[in-house]
């Protein structure tokens, strides 16, 4: 398919993370004005946050101040998991964490999982098993599944379903998401191949 990823989704221009110059400017302004000023390590990059309220959630700061739109906002109440990130390797709903409290931690979003072979395998299986429809829950799920399979590589069906109960998906009914996780486990030799019962066809 020659349609690029961007081509399949209309938009006037890519999201604009603040440039280094703008960040320096903001920093100077914040220091001058005595506003909240801190740094966040997001996906391995040190980002300066200034002018944010101390009460702003990590989700708000990531999306609105730093332009990190890979983290999704669907409830702001810790109920949907669309905003899932790893904070020092632990799964968190970024809407329930104060951004200022994440100062000094390592925040990883789906965009920063790339280096991990596990995350790549999960992403590939989400695609091949049909776990993506509208995709709005997908970044959060990829983060949550990466954390789960790091902690419990051989999680069984029930454990998987319980562990992911904090991530809502309205499109898939979860069947293909669980199938994708089982496929990753198979691929990694954790699960015997051929457990999956498939559709029966009656022409």
């Amino acid at each position, binding site marked *: 398919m020659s349609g690029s990823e961007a081509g399949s989704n209309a938009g006037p221009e890519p999201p604009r993370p603040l440039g280094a110059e703008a960040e320096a400017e903001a920093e100077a302004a914040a220091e001058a004005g005595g506003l909240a000023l801190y740094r966040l390590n997001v996906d391995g990059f040190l980002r300066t946050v200034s002018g944010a309220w101390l009460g702003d959630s990590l989700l708000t700061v990531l999306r609105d101040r730093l332009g990190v739109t890979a983290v999704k906002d669907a409830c702001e109440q810790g109920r949907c998991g669309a905003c899932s990130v790893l904070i020092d390797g632990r799964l968190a709903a970024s809407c329930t964490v104060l951004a200022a409290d994440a100062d000094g931690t390592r925040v990883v979003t789906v965009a920063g999982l790339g280096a991990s072979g596990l995350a790549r395998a999960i992403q590939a299986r989400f695609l091949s098993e049909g776990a*993506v429809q509208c995709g709005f829950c997908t970044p959060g799920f990829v983060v949550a599944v990466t954390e789960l399979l790091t902690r419990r590589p051989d999680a069984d069906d029930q454990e998987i379903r319980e562990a992911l109960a904090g991530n809502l998906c309205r499109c898939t009914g979860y069947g293909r998401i669980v199938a994708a996780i089982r496929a990753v486990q198979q691929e990694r030799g954790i699960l015997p191949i051929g457990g999956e019962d498939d*559709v*029966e066809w009656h022409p």
Partner: protein
Amino acid sequence: MRRPDGPAKVHGRFRYVGDLQVPGMLHARTLRSPHPRARIRHLDTAAARRVPGVAVLVTAADVPGLATYGLIVADQPVFGGVRGEVRYAGEPVAAVAAVDARAARHALAAIEVDYEPLPPVTDPRRALAADTPTLHPNGNLFREIDIRHGEDGVHGPVVVEDDYAIGMQDQAFLAPEAAVAIPAADGGIDLLVATQWLHSDREQIAACLALPEQLVRLTLAGVGGAFGGREDITVQIHAALLARAAGAPVRIAYDRVESFLGHPHRHPARMRLRHTATHDGELVSVTARVLLDGGAYASSSPAVLANAITHAAGPYRVPHARLHGLVVRTNNPPCGAMRGFGVPQVTIGHEAQMDRLADALGLDPVGLRVRNALQPGDVLPTGQVLGGPLPARELITLVAARPLPPPAKHDPTGLSLPGGLPAMAEPSRVRRGIGYALAYKNLLFSEGVDDASTARVRLALAADGTPHAQVHSACAEVGQGFVTIAAQIARTELGIDQIELLPADTAVASAGSTSASRQTWMSGGAVRGACAAVVDRLLARVARAAGLPGPVVETARRSLTITGGQIVGAEVGLRMSVADALAMGPVEAEYTFHHRRTTALGAAGQGDPHVAFAAAAHRAVVDVDLDLGLVRVVSMALAQDCGTVLNPLALRGQVEGGTAQGLGLAVMEELVTDAGRVVNPTFHDYLIPTAADVPDLDFVAVTEPQPDAPYGVKGVGEAPTCTATPAIIAAIRAAVGRDLRRVPVRPHHLVGPPDADPPDADAASGGPFGEGPS
């Protein structure tokens, strides 16, 4: 074939409408009425306009064109106005655009609205009573349909009759509403929206802005789910008004609470059903009265009622029927389209009745359904003769034969018991139940509507000299996978690999709505037709260039074929690569697909209203904790009438997602109102199923092709949503031995006094339907 938008989605690079940034963009928020019914005496925006950072503020006074909008009837005000009434709690009153969202929120708080609250009408049974005030100049009745079929007064000796009530479900798509509006130099406006139907949006926006339609240009931005909830206008007109007033781009966005208040929901329903049969189980008559609460504005209520009432007897042969339906206006939140479009509600009713009837007859519920299931050639209550395949009998038989799950095992973790770990059940107090449901659901728009779809295809050489096709359709991809299907069709028809889908926008003619299970059939048909026209033109060109005689040129498809990038005509001795043929210039074609003509409902509700149907059958197995009233859905099996399957993965995703939404309606999902106000507009209080709630789906696809559809396809997303709910309710009934006439089923329905919360509990006027016009 995988989703073309998949890689961007798994990496978090896919841009949803709420992710868009435009230079100089303002941020907008909406002020909503807290009252379900009130007169606005005075609206003072002076202080709000002075809030630092505020750019513009708009109210009803700033709407230059039509003051109202709507999918079918323009009865909904863009803003509740001064000296006008607001008619539901959550109705927009003003919108503000500011430099950031915080300033916009501060400004909303500074708007002074002097409301004179009026007593709201919140019981739909009272909507048509003589002493109920008229809530809108259009009156309180959206539509009434009275279907009379067979002979009046002919009934069988075995009778079951009861009332049922269904609560208000929400689509709860995951990405809340948002839009970006950008004023254009030509005086028009460009909008990036997440919608189900670009051209309907455009028509409504243009009318309210008093702009010619060609100056209102819409492009589909990334859509995070829809399920009917994006068929109506929400943010679009407000964003456009603000952007034009500010002369700057505006992004408007809802949070979850606003999303719950901002779009129409699934209609709450009440019904009384009476089924009669012979002693050996043949249905003789069905009498149905169905009352839908349409809420404050029409939305798609008239069409939802037609769907509900024409399907009210279910997929069964019924010689005599009287089906009477009403959809009324109240001061409750507006209701409109949601997956299943009126059919899930009546399916809950007719399937409960079929189980009751089986019980009364001492028959097996599967056997009773098999015996009465519709078959092609049967006459429906509207007089329509059922065409096309409808393997209803086969489906219910197949699903009943699926292996049952093993009995509940001793589980020290408690995870597999109802309530899971936090509410560990005492295993000896857990009961298992099995239930079945069968339904059929119409496909495409009904009642004489010609909801055509147009697509444009352009075949040309790419920069590297390889053939490359651009497919242009305004079909809204909302997650369902049309982008995959469209590319698959184009690849198949054109015989080339390089397919590019242009963004869906209003630069091409309408594709109709992404609803009614219609896009694979309708827009799939349009893409296929456009591709076929491109191939015809290309082959004719090649034949002409090769100097073949006129008749061969005119019917080039008969003598030439495209295979593996080569145009070959063995009999006429021709061979040319597609690339060489395209070197003479690109080929382009547009095609509009129409489905077969249907008719409106005439006298006595008779006609030929529906294009076609798809059927589904579910079997549910549940465990119920008899002490706490908690339910665990242990297993779901589904047999579904799918037509030809173009993409097995997409099919599976649709039926699993549809099943999960039906499960939600059965045991957890209800938007609860108190005196017209939604009391649970958050994911904290409105629960949707999680991975721990939804079991694996055992799925059997029956793939009889639909003769008049492209490739023989059928829409697949809606039928399983209709059957999942009643199958689960039936299984719970079987486990606890209660009637369960109110859906969703709550723990207190299972452990409280019998028949807590009956469907007719709050009848203020005697009968379950109050005073009606007939």
